[in-house]
């Protein structure tokens, strides 16, 4: 298959999606590809924290100020994806009091609004915080639903310029001729089919994989340090606000509310490769051990899953080593010195600063195409699409209750996702396709995200997909197994307390009842173990 577009963007994370929409607002049609799906990398493996900048105020004033400005823009441009819950920085007994004293000045230097809080007031605001807290500041942190951000950006780019997103499309090489990339040679990772995408400009926004993509184009200038971060999700929301430990960044020192849950993180460990990225029990333990000093309830709260992402930290040439010390800033590579004039890479940065990253590379690409429209992502609000807001906890549930349609059966009981939501995703979500995998439906809704982590809804949604003819043969079983294996990757490191019987129940359902352990990844019968 061959596709043509003005621009090919590689990487369906929040930055790649941001570039897609930025270009569309300038009238430029692009194709976005990802070897997996939307937010398969760091964009889906993070806290969902919209930093006020306080986190970086002490050691990276520039990033801190960038966070402050970009966070404010996003709150105006995409309020539907943001919970403006506020944040706290809290020190507990034993923390460095010198750091506490300097914090206000650091924030002031980065222009961050930072209010000292009385410790009694703090405990009244957030009763879950330790009674050993000694100092606190309030900052304008917020949270963001990165899935809603990417989905709505892709949908808006489709509306504006008929831009296109192709999931499970992996770059295998580039056709380069006369100092220009002519086409990207791709492979559909589901079907194995070869896909060629011809474009005038090529954007590498592949995050942790950007170094590999650049090398496929013969560019050796992108050097990325992979810093793996593991986070863990509590079954309930423990605090109203974001709670940061008031100290130099370390493991397990941020607790971020996400709708009905809380997310604790993160670790930071430099890794050598990207083959296996899964959270480990040791990393989970480290987060909880550190986090409980701030929020004692973390010691006995129920966690439903852990997940890991890889921060792509850009190394300056000659730099090395520590992920905590590496800059959270980003770098734009125009690759002119690599002998290419239509290939560019944007790497590093943060979820909070993705819009600015997209603006920088879109400016370059638009100029190279002779398009002089200004960037409009800081002034043109991202349309909130009611039909695509299924990633918001409780949204499907409220819509279902209001509709009072008994024929619209609930498929996912934990998050109360009815058939009609699954149908809406299949019909109109970006990246929707025939034989849509369960994982892709999960990315675009709350399917599989609740307490049971897909134990029941995987079966019910798959049954529904067979009923409506989405699946016909055995492929649906294989896709269900893939989905459950991916969920298990997250539940395995938190198997204690209530999550242990939950996993036993899941095993009984999936292996005992359905025999999924005998199905291989392509829906074919495997050898019994």
């Amino acid at each position, binding site marked *: 298959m061959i596709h043509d577009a003005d621009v090919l963007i590689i990487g369906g994370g929040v930055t790649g999606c941001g570039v897609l929409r930025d270009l569309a607002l300038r009238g430029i049609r692009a194709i976005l590809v990802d070897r997996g799906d939307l937010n398969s990398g760091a964009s889906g493996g993070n806290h969902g924290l919209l930093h006020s900048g306080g986190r970086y105020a002490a050691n990276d004033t520039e990033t801190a100020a960038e966070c402050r400005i970009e966070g404010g823009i996003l709150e105006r441009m995409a309020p539907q994806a943001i919970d403006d819950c506020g944040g706290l920085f809290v020190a507990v007994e034993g923390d460095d009091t010198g750091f506490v004293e300097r914090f206000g000045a650091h924030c002031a230097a980065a222009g961050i609004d930072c209010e000292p809080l009385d410790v009694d007031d703090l405990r009244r605001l957030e009763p879950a915080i330790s009674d050993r807290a000694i100092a606190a500041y309030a900052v304008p942190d917020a949270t963001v639903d990165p899935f809603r951000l990417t989905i709505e950006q892709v949908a808006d780019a489709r509306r504006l310029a008929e831009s296109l997103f192709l999931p499970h499309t992996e770059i295998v090489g580039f056709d380069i001729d006369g100092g220009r990339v002519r086409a990207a040679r791709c492979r559909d990772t589901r079907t194995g089919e070869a896909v060629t995408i011809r474009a005038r400009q090529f954007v590498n926004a592949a995050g942790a994989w950007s170094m590999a993509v650049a090398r496929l184009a013969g560019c050796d200038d992108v050097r990325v340090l992979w810093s793996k971060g593991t986070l863990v999700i509590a*079954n309930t929301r423990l605090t109203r606000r974001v709670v940061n430990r008031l100290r130099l960044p370390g493991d397990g020192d941020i607790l971020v509310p996400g709708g009905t849950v809380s997310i604790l993180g993160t670790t930071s460990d430099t890794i050598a490769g990207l083959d296996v990225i899964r959270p480990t029990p040791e990393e989970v333990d480290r987060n909880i051990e550190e986090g409980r000093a701030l929020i004692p309830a973390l010691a006995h709260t*129920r966690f439903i899953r852990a997940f890991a992402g890889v921060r792509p930290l850009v190394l300056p040439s000659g730099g090395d080593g520590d992920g905590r010390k590496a800059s959270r800033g980003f770098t734009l590579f125009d690759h002119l010195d690599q002998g290419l004039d239509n290939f560019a890479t944007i790497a590093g940065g943060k979820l909070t600063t993705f819009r600015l990253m997209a603006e920088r590379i879109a400016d370059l690409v638009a100029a190279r195409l002779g398009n002089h429209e200004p960037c409009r992502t800081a002034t043109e609000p991202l349309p909130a699409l009611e039909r695509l807001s299924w990633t918001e906890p409780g949204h499907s549930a409220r819509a279902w209750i209001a509709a009072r349609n008994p024929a619209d059966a609930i498929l996912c009981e934990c998050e109360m996702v009815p058939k009609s939501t699954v149908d809406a995703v299949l019909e109109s979500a970006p990246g929707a396709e025939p034989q849509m995998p369960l994982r892709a439906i999960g990315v675009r809704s709350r399917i599989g995200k*609740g307490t049971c982590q897909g134990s029941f809804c995987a079966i019910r949604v798959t049954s529904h997909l067979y009923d409506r003819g989405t699946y016909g043969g055995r492929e649906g079983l294989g896709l269900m197994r893939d989905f459950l294996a991916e969920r298990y990757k997250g539940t395995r490191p938190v198997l204690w307390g209530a999550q242990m019987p939950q996993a036993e129940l899941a095993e009984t359902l999936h292996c005992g009842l359905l025999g999924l352990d005998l199905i291989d990844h392509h829906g074919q019968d495997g050898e019994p173990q």
Partner: protein
Amino acid sequence: MNPSQASTAIDFKAVADRLLPAGSSYDSCLACGLCSSGCPASGLEGMDPRRFIRMAMLGLDAELTSTPWIWTCTQCKRCAQVCPMNIDVSVLVGYARSQWPDERKPSGIVRSCKAQMLSDSTSAMGVSPEDFVEIVEETAEELRRSDDRFAHIAVPIDRKGAFFFINQNSREPAAEPEEMRPLWKVLDHVGADWTYGSSGWAAENFCMFAGDDAAWKAMVEKRVEAVDALGCKVWINTECGHSFYTLWKGVERFGLKPNFDYASLVTYYAQWIREGKLPVNADWNTRGIKFTLQDPCQLVRKSIGDEAADDLRFVAKTLVGEANFVDMQPCRSANYCCGGGGGFLQAGMKELRHAYGKRKFDQIAATEAAYVLTPCHNCHSQMEDLAHHYGGTYRVVHFWTLICLSLGILGPDERKYLGPDLQDVGLPQ
């Protein structure tokens, strides 16, 4: 009703954390759905017990605060019985009921509770102490006149120092006083040292169903006072489920200190049979009429447990013959609520109540029994109504009727719940 009508939404998760025992908060729900699978109210108003928990976890408090489903849940605790994580939804249903303003609660339940507050009787049908005494005395006098065998039967009221204080469901004095006579005959037959009270005599408590804790407490206090005032040793609850539960549970919940023990009449039926004081048998059942048994949730699953279920079966099998007894499946502590409990009968939600009861109707039909025995007035009324609604041919009968039938002392006008097949059995020649 819609969410916007809810004045203040309840924080269900926080209330569950407070009211449920440690380790069984909503947070530990596995979403397995065992609760919903065993709940006859599943599907009514788009709800079921699991959904109740999930909605609380998703923070849909306004929707939960206003759902009329809480009045279709009979608080039978079958969900709690099967929950692997020991979560009890009925506790939060009771709490939600308490938060509805009286004027929006089903008026029949509120009215019944208010009637109980009217006099010392604590009668949901508004029978005053004076009327009760008069009806009992008149009915007893009629019995003495009409049957020589009972010419000297005593029906004591307010007799100090009696061993047993026996309560009385209001339905009989108010609507069918002749139905009191079989019980008196049984008590006479075993030589029980018993009394009624003119105060606190009524065997119903709709205040619990109304979610009115203060009134529930007041009713239990009144009854405890009445029994203690007469110095009785044992309070026997008549053939009624919830009036036993509301006292049994109320004493614990409100920290009361009664100076008497409490028991179900069924326990004593069984004891008197074992002691030879009630020489009943199934000789009368020459036609092999089949009987099944409804375990009242309030008496079995919710309070006494399988001990009560054992006694019920012992009494029933002795009365009808082992071969003529067919249990429902499931039964005992796992029995399905019939839908007569929780104030449902008084709630004015007839279609929903019939839908709820369909499972019970099917269960009874599957036994092919001609009669259902049950020691519970609400079960009795609901199962009769279900037979009427779904075209069933079974009848529902009190234990006291069959005991007197077996003893040959059941009068011809004490047979309103028996079919034509039993109108002439055991009558004096």
